[in-house]
């Protein structure tokens, strides 16, 4: 998709609203569904990867230092990572902006 979804006019919709670009669901920003945001305290993190394993969105990835980072473009703020974290290094806070 060359245009953002909110800019596409009805004349630009493909016949039958078909999608010709495989995997374009990755362009869909699910991060704006979020009302609570996970905040990570890396000083408490033991790199156990439970957050990575449990994240239903698959938006947590391991960085070069072995810590796990959350991609806020996709994170829906479900809080499962915070629930599963054994050291409470992830807490959920209300997202103000």
């Amino acid at each position: 998709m060359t245009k953002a979804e909110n800019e596409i006019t009805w004349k630009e919709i493909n016949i039958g609203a078909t999608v010709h670009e495989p995997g374009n669901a990755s362009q869909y920003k699910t991060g704006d569904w979020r009302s609570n945001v996970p905040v990570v305290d890396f000083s408490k993190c033991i790199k156990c990867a439970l957050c990575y394993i449990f994240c239903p969105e698959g938006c947590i990835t391991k960085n070069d230092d072995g810590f796990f980072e959350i991609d806020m473009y996709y994170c829906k703020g479900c809080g499962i990572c915070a629930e599963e974290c054994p050291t409470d290094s992830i807490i959920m806070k209300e997202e103000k902006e």
Partner: protein
Amino acid sequence: MKQYVGMEVSVALAEAVKLANADVIAAYPITPQTHIIEHLAELVASGELDAEYIPIESEHSAMSACLGSSAVGARTFTATAGQGLELMHEVLFVASAMRLPIVMAVANRAVSSPLSVWGDHSDVMACRDVGWIQIFAENGQEVVDNAICAFKMAEDNRVLLPVMLNLDGFHLSHMVEPVLMPEQKAVSDFLPLNNYPQPLNPDKPVAMGDFAPPVIFTEAKWAQEMSLRNSYSTILEVWDQFGKQFGRHYRPVEHYRTEGASTLLLTMGSFSETAMTAIDSLRDEGCKVGLIRLRLWRPFPFSDIREAVKGISNLIVLDRAISLGGPGGPAASEIKAAFYGEENKPKIVSFVAGLGGRDVTPKGFEEIITRGIEIAEKGSSNEYEIYGVRE
């Protein structure tokens, strides 16, 4: 060589589908559609029609199979009636929204309960908003001709929409009528091969029926609405071409003895033939009545209807379906809406008759017209009248 052959209309329709050289037929038998798909099954089994025939477990599955076969670019046909149409209801929306050029015949049947296998339009009228092109035929010849036209309309790349061809169950589907079957070569010349522009193909992936968030759904629906509205000009073009090649002409709204008429009766489907007899005898008595027949139901032919009633005092709309708790017969309420903003409009009277296969005789049409004129002149406190109900 033009030769009329006496044929059951269902069989003639199946033969027309053979002439159109359909690739896939997925159908579930239901009275009064059964003879259509039985004959197609025979044609496929005998090798006369080279097609895949899918005898499937339900109408919901039948229409779903049609989605798949149409999506790969195969010329696809099915037929149903009554409850069967309602069982496939949700898939009908999908077919039109995906812009799949499926052709379906509906042998119109009343919807239960009480159980009725006989004809009326309550099945199709519950499917008004499914986004299909909808055509009504009034005799066997029209069924044959419009089945062939339906494929051409549906598959035209400016249209790409499914087409529903309505024929009254029993009153039309089971009649033996003289039919002029077009010759194969003429049909092949008229109807080019299906050229679906985006067929499912592993080498060129396309995803159909995708998820659309609120930010895009309105645009998708408006694009679909425009496709159905814009199909109108192609529908006319196909009928014109058919008329030039085969000498039988079709229009969205057709006229019978409307010259100098002050009252018009509007009918759909097989009602129209009997109504003509009634118009003839009323004309003989000096009554200035005529008949208009609504052939195209979707897209609704606004301009043709408005043009047809210019200078007319009374329009009596006869529906073969009841809109329970609603403003009148389905066609009547839409026609009233079409005239609401017009300055010069006729008085529009709504009648419902012929439910669940009940016959309306020429005498019955005369009574409806007479009573309709009376209501138009004196008014009525009822939203509509139902003809022939025993009090």
